[in-house]
């Protein structure tokens, strides 16, 4: 039977296997905005981090509204995706828009996954964004959807 452990493992595997995610933010006028980002996730599935230049639309949007959504999937752009691909929709809140880039464990997690982005991350114009994850919606077998809700001790208000 489906257990939380299985679900967590499947999500973790998907997050590990993918380098890029689609990030959805919202502008101050309420328009949706999607962009592609390089991300990394913590083992406990509680945090997802990425880096962005501060002059971007996504950064402006996050500064205005910290609620974001991400889409991470393993599609191959072939017909077989319809039975084979998995996608996870992630809901979360940005809890720091300029995290500590030099010593932070999260920053090293990010660079372990994306070593080629070291210069990009360390640029003074780049913000390191830390998202606290609230929930995952894993879609497999075309239409099966399972939800995983993350209980974050620091975010009691979120529930």
């Amino acid at each position: 039977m489906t257990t939380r452990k299985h679900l967590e493992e499947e999500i973790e595997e998907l997050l590990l296997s993918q380098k890029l995610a689609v990030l959805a933010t919202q502008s101050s006028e309420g328009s949706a905005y999607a962009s592609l980002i390089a991300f990394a996730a913590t083992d406990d599935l509680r945090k997802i981090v990425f880096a962005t230049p501060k002059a971007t639309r996504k950064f402006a949007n996050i500064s205005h509204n910290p609620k974001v959504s991400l889409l991470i999937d393993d599609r191959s752009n072939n017909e077989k995706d319809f039975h084979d691909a998995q996608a996870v929709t992630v809901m979360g809140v940005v809890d720091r828009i300029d995290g500590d880039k030099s010593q932070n464990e999260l920053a090293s997690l990010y660079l372990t996954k994306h070593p080629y982005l070291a210069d990009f991350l360390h640029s003074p114009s780049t913000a390191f964004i830390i998202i606290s994850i609230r929930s995952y919606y894993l879609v497999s077998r075309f239409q099966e959807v399972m939800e995983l809700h993350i209980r974050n001790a620091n975010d009691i208000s979120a529930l």
Partner: protein
Amino acid sequence: MRTTYLLSEISLDSNIFGGKATALKGLHEAGLRLPATLCIATEAYKQFVSVSSMQEKIQLELHRKKFSDMRWEEIWDAALRIRNLFLRQTMPEKLAREIGRALEEHFSENPVVVRSSAPEEDAAATSFAGLHESFVNIRGSGPILEHVKLVWASLWSDRALLYRKELDLDFARSSMAVVVQELVSGDVSGITFSINPSDASEGVVEAVYGLNQGLVDGAVEPDRWVFHRKEETIKEHYKPRREKFMAPQGDEVILTDLPENKALQPPLSAKEAVAIYRKAKQIEKVFDKPQDVEWTRVGSDFFILQSRPVTARQDGDQDDKRGWYLSLQRSEDNLKKLRLKIEQVHFPAMKREAAALAETDLEILSDKELAGEIAQRLQVKKKWTAVYWEDFIPFAHGMRLFGRFYNDTVSPADPFEFVELLSNVPLLSIKRNKALRKIGAYVQQYPDLQQTIAAGGGSKITDVEFSGMMEEFISLYGDPFCGTYSDRTCNASRSELLNVVLQIASSTAAEAGRIDKVTDKADLEAAFFARFTTGEKRARAEGLLDLARASYRLRDDDNIILGRIEEQFFRALQEGRRRLQENHFAGAADLDDSEVIRSLVDRSYKPGSQKQKKTQSEQENQDMKARQLLGQPAGPGIGRGLARVIDSAGDLAHFKKGEVLVCDAVDPNMTFVVPLAAGVVERRGGMLIHGAIIAREYGIACVTGVPDAATLIHTGDEVTVDGYLGIVTVGQKDSAFL
């Protein structure tokens, strides 16, 4: 790339031509006499499935859920859908032209046999005769091409899917080659085993009059010669009662009565039996492995039809029920006999037995006698449960037999359209629901009566007419709640049935109308029968439909009748528990039958505590939620409501109209709440299972085969049942969202 070859032109690569074709090639090279043969390479299959995204459609069908979670019924359903995909997909013109031209050139209008030649067959360690399909007596390139498609589809037959591991079936890569052979209409046919699979010192020749099909599917019992393998001499000759033979007729193969002169005479002389056994030994040398050889005799000439290595059929360990499942696929003839047995022997006997048991006054029995009564009723229940598996479940195959026939004839857009035709006869559970509806309508007129029932005062009801109706109902259909509560007697649980009556009484006219609905399928039926040109074919279609309807109806009725036997067992068990409780046996209500029996006989016996411990999984899963669950679209429609999860039959009593019924399996004894439901969700999968049948009768959205339905969905959850796509969505507003 070329797709069609003569036997002399093919290589021995079974990936291209399949096991059967390459074996024939070996026989051909050894100089054995074979019918004219064409080979259609796997390339043709590949071209076919690459058009119109057939490949991905097949994949989607096979990946609806984890394959290991699929039940036999669901595998059969998936295979039927895939088969329909092949039926409805026209062959690419170029491919049809190429194969068609070769067929016309070599066979003209002569009848042929279209056989599967799977690449995996050859590689498999085990012999898998009959997992894929063959078709006999097909004439003309158009019909042959249609049957080539069906052979391709049988790569994904339910049988092949069951043995996918042994067959090394690869969902993404497997393909199928086809062999087309001229039909040699032999006067005698048979199978020779150069080695007896169950005794290595022996060999076997089996022979029947007419074509081999009767022998292969078990309709005709063969003469059987057992040989000393080494000496090649006859050890024994077993003679059957020779009654029938298979012969080509029109475009079919028909089971026919054997003329008397033949019935008295073995199909082969001893000399011929030895000759054909030696031939098998010769073929064994060609392939360097013991062989199972299919042959036919015309005059004095023996033609070899096919040959494959002999391997013992391995049905795995005791838990492997696949052999039993394969045995469910019975012939029309066999099913007709089974029907008579069920209708004329089993059902009357069960009814008699239930009625006889009901007459015993349990309360006047001594404790010892009661213990004996419980034990005896348990045996009765076991006996009929065994019959249920032995005869009732196999009879359900009548529906499937017709389903395939219907799809082959009509190739409908919906592969389960045939189910519509099955329901012209009222099922027992539909009749029962109508009876409940009548009582509900009566209660509707009397608010006082409603109040008394609602207040739980069932025993205080003084309305004689009402009591009479309830008694009549119980005597006709039994009390579906009896036995579902371990802590209450059947009389006490009567209040649950009254609650259901109350729910029905408070239904609107439209809701209630659903219960009385009689669907008219006359147009569909007329369109189906209009497809038959000759009276004989129509008669066969009528026979199959009649059989399927009986199968559909009896598969419902058998459960209700078995339920009445079980009810009698529970009555006795409850009487036992009641007595123990009166004697201050703590926990008597939870004792199982053996403990009750023992405690009744030996009052000093202290039964062990049977309290079940709650598993921890509930706790563990608190942060996991199902949003959208996938199952089979078993009843079209969309229904929305609060979930009522049924863990035990007793939960049904809390069921309120407009709720979504979520359960492990809709027990046929519980279907009376189905017409009140907004939708039905079942863990148990299948399009032809009971819950799906009833939901479809009432036009209620139904999704079956949702693996964790009863654990992932909770009572009170808002649920949407999409019976068109087979999707269950949990939660309307996304409350967990930030």
